[in-house]
C-alpha cells in the first residue's frame, strides 16, 4: 500500500469504528429516584472529608475571592477558563458524532479567542452561540456505557464511576493542556482552580444548604447530582415522569376527619 494512503486508511477505520460505537445508541438513563451506590460507606467518609475541607478552606477562601475580586474581573476569568475548555468539548463532540455541536463549539472558541480578547470577553454568547458543554463521561454515555456506581471524589465531590474515568481521560487528552508546557500549563491549572472557587462563590447558598442544613447532606448531594447529570445526558430528550396519581394506592383526599383543602 502506498504510504500516502495509510493515514487515510487509519482515518477511515477510525470513522467506521466511531460510527459503529455511536450506532449502539446511548445508555439507558435510570429514572429520577434510582440510586446505585455500592460504595456508600467509603463515599460517606469522602463526603465528610469534603465538607471538612469546604468548611476549613474552600468556603472561606471562595468568600474572600468573591469579596476581593471585583465582579467584572471574576466574570472575565470565568470566561477565559471556560474558553480554554472549548477545544476539549470539540474533541468530545466529534467522538460523539455530534458534529453540529463540534462546529458550534469551534466557532465559539474562534470568536471568543479573537474578538473576545483571548476569552476574557464572551461575544459569542451575545451572538447566541452558547457553549455545548460536554465531557468524556458523556461521550461514553453516547457510546452506550451506563453510569455505574455513585462516587464521591476528593474535593471535587459527586461523580459516578463512568464519569470518574471520563474525568481522567479528559485531563489526559485536553488539547489546551497538551498545547502548552510549563509555566503556561501551570497558569491554566491556576485558572481552573480560580474558576472552581468562583463557582463555589456563585453557588454559595445552594451548596451551604446541602452541606450544612440538610438532614442528610450526603443523600441530598447524591440525589441532586444524579438528577442533574442525567438531565444533561438526556440532552433535551423526553423524560419519563413519575405519575403519583397512577402510583397512589388510595386517594390521599379521602380523609374521614377533615378535608385537606379546608382552610
Amino acid at each position, binding site marked *: 500500500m502506498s504510504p500516502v494512503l495509510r493515514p487515510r486508511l487509519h482515518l477511515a477505520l477510525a470513522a467506521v469504528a466511531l460510527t459503529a460505537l455511536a450506532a449502539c445508541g446511548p445508555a439507558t438513563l435510570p429514572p429520577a429516584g434510582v440510586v446505585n451506590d455500592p460504595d456508600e460507606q467509603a463515599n460517606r467518609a469522602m463526603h465528610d472529608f469534603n465538607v471538612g475541607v469546604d468548611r476549613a478552606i474552600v468556603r472561606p477562601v471562595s468568600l474572600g475571592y468573591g469579596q476581593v475580586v471585583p465582579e467584572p474581573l471574576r466574570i472575565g476569568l470565568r470566561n477565559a477558563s471556560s474558553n480554554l475548555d472549548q477545544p476539549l468539548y470539540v474533541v468530545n463532540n466529534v467522538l460523539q458524532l455530534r458534529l453540529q455541536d463540534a462546529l458550534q463549539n469551534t466557532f465559539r472558541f474562534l470568536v471568543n479567542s479573537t474578538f473576545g480578547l483571548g476569552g476574557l470577553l464572551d461575544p459569542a454568547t451575545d451572538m447566541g452561540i452558547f457553549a455545548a458543554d460536554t465531557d468524556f463521561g458523556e461521550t461514553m454515555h453516547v457510546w452506550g456505557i451506563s453510569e455505574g456506581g455513585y462516587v464521591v471524589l476528593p474535593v471535587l465531590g459527586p461523580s459516578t464511576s463512568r464519569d470518574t474515568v471520563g474525568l481522567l481521560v479528559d485531563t489526559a487528552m485536553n488539547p489546551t493542556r497538551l498545547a502548552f508546557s510549563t509555566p503556561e500549563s501551570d497558569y491554566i491549572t491556576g485558572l481552573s482552580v480560580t474558576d472552581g472557587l468562583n463557582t463555589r462563590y456563585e453557588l454559595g447558598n445552594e451548596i451551604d444548604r446541602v452541606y450544612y442544613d440538610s*438532614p442528610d447532606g450526603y443523600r*441530598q448531594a447524591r*440525589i441532586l447530582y444524579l438528577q442533574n447529570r442525567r438531565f*444533561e445526558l438526556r440532552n433535551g430528550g423526553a423524560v419519563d415522569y413519575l405519575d403519583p*396519581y397512577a402510583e*397512589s394506592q388510595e386517594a*390521599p383526599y379521602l*380523609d374521614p376527619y377533615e378535608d385537606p383543602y379546608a*382552610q
Partner: protein
Amino acid sequence: MRNNTGLSRRVFLSLAAAFAAAAIQPTRIWATMTMDAATNVVARLVGELYTVINSGRPEAQMYSEFEDLLDRYADMPIIAQSVLGADWRRASDGQRRTFVNVFKAYISRKYGSRFRDLVGGRIEVEGSRTIRSFFEVTSVAHLRGEAPFEIVWLVSDGSGEARIFNLIIEGINLRTTEAEEVGALLDRNRGDIDAMIADLRNAS
C-alpha cells in the same frame, strides 16, 4: 353455549370492575382538564407569586402567603403522599393530615427563602403538552445576572381541580428531592413518623 356464558360473565365482571373503579375515582375517568386550564394554573400562580415577592412584606408573612398559594395551586395531599412513599400506607389518618400541613409549611419556608432571587426577574410561560393523563407546562425563568433556564411544571386534575403536583428545574424534581430529605429524617428517627414530623417542623 357454556363457553358463551363464561365469556359474558367475564365481560360482566370486567365491566363491573370498570364501573367500580370509575365510582372510586370519577375524575380520573372523565378528566376534562384542557391544556389551557393547565397553562392557566401556572400563569396565575406565577402572577400571584410575583405580587407576594414584590410586596416587600416581612419574610414570615410572605411564607404564610406562599402556603396559601400552595393550598390554591398545588395538590399538596398527593405531593405529600408521594414524598412519604411506602411509609404513607402505615401512617394513621391523623399523622397523614399533620404531615400534609407540616410539609406544606416546610416547602413554603425552604423555597420561600430562595424567592429573593426572583426579585427583578420574570418567569414566562412558554407552552404545554399532554403526558399520559396529565400536562407538562414549560416556562423560562429570566433572572438577573443568570442565563435563562427552564422550569417544568406538572399539572393534573386528579384531585378534581387542575393542580400542580411537581416542578422540575435542570432535571431536579421537587418530589424526588424532598423524598430524600423526608426519608433522611425518617431514618434519623428510626422510622418514627411523629418524630420525623416534629423534626420537619424545624427544618428549613
